[in-house]
């Protein structure tokens, strides 16, 4: 599965990348929303994992843009604790799942696996 991970925190990005690679996925990473939108166009990922707070374009903008283009690519949103309203907004825009920080990489791996079966 080709997965795009957008997260502005370098170590978090590295952890997610390593975990997903360990599970046998192809991972494309980016630390900002603008590049994420570019990668979506050029690489056509099967799954997108995006943080909400990011420079240039937020995770919500990514969800909105992808779903506006009628793409069926599933999106998992990473949110911080206490951002319930933002998560609701992400779901309204078309996000498929969310994970709240703090989270366990194993939990992320399981959630991704769910989409692998669905694909």
């Amino acid at each position, binding site marked *: 599965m080709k997965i795009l991970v957008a997260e502005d*925190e*370098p*170590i*978090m990005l*590295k*952890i997610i*990348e*390593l*975990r997903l690679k*360990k599970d046998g996925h192809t991972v494309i990473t980016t630390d900002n929303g603008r590049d994420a939108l570019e990668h979506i166009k050029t690489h056509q990922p099967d799954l997108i994992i995006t943080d909400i707070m990011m420079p240039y374009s937020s995770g919500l903008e990514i969800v909105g843009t992808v779903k506006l283009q009628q793409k069926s690519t599933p999106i998992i949103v990473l949110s911080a604790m206490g951002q319930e309203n933002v998560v609701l907004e992400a779901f309204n825009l078309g996000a498929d799942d969310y994970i709240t*920080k*703090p*989270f*366990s*990489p*194993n*939990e992320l791996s399981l959630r991704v696996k769910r989409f692998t079966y669905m694909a």
Partner: protein
Amino acid sequence: MRLYIAGIWWHNTSAVPDIFIPKSFLFESTFLFAVAIFSLLSFIIFYLMRYISYTAKRKHLSSIYSSFISEIILCETEEELMQVMQQSYIQTIIYKWLSRPIGKRLLLKNLIKIHRNMSGSAAGNIRWLYMHLALDQDSVKRLSSPKWHIKAKAIQELAEMKQEKYISKIYRETNNKNVYIRTEAQVAVVKLTGFEGLRFLNVVSQPITQWQQLSLLQLLSLKNKFQWDKLPGWLKSKNETVVEFALRLVEKYQRYEFHNEVVYCLEHPSALIRKQSIYTLKEISQPHTAHLLEHYFLMSEKEEQLCILEVMQAIGTKEQLPFLNSLLAMEDASIQYRTHKVIRQISVPDLGYDTDKISGEAA
């Protein structure tokens, strides 16, 4: 006035006395000025170079650390952790960078940041690394620093890394004169031991800010185990902020068994506590609470009277109507207005929202 500069007389028409500036003085001052400018430029360049080199070093270290920490986080057993630690690049990190303050500081910063975002075994692995590299010793050493910000940060690190064994050292700081140190220490003891950590309320003599009270309440909401036996003592504390915080606890957790103690607080010398007691009674009201508030109404100041009426709107019954009607004779318009609202609410409880609207329109 005439000016003699560098061998030439400069004329103008004003009647000020002549000024003579010798040539040598001009040379000297020019030279000194040039030296000053040169020194300033040198300092700026030196500082800039240092800053650039520091930033580059930080960037380089951050990238090394991110690989190192990621590998550690994804380990599933202790053997795996030890294997990762044996890798040559990690040994280089330990010997080359962790002996330097910048390397240690940056690793600690990254560990704390990541620990906040991780849970389960990943968070456990970060704590393992923290202990394995003896970074806890480093944090403890900084606990005795005379600088408040270093001390506060050390407390924060120990709490984040769940170092319960240092609880007594942290506990000592919960009554520190410095607000930042004691705030961090109070948060740390509650983070580490939950409700039990609130035992600092027994001895704290420094004020607890309202923000700090709310932070502690928020932290406690994440814990399950509560011990209420100390609460009556806190409600009688000499430290007013401890009483205020105890009242907030009773209010948030609706501890009905402390009704009488809260009523006792209605006679507290501090207006802030009297007001908080009224609001707390709203959450733990009993059939006779509204009647008790009637009794305290006439002894209270205007602000508290308004609070009592606000609470009565929520807990009052038709039994309060004679008392409320008597209040309509009071001269104060705001009391009259609030009383009208309460009477309407009690008389027609189902129309609470509409009556508010009507009152607003009438006003």
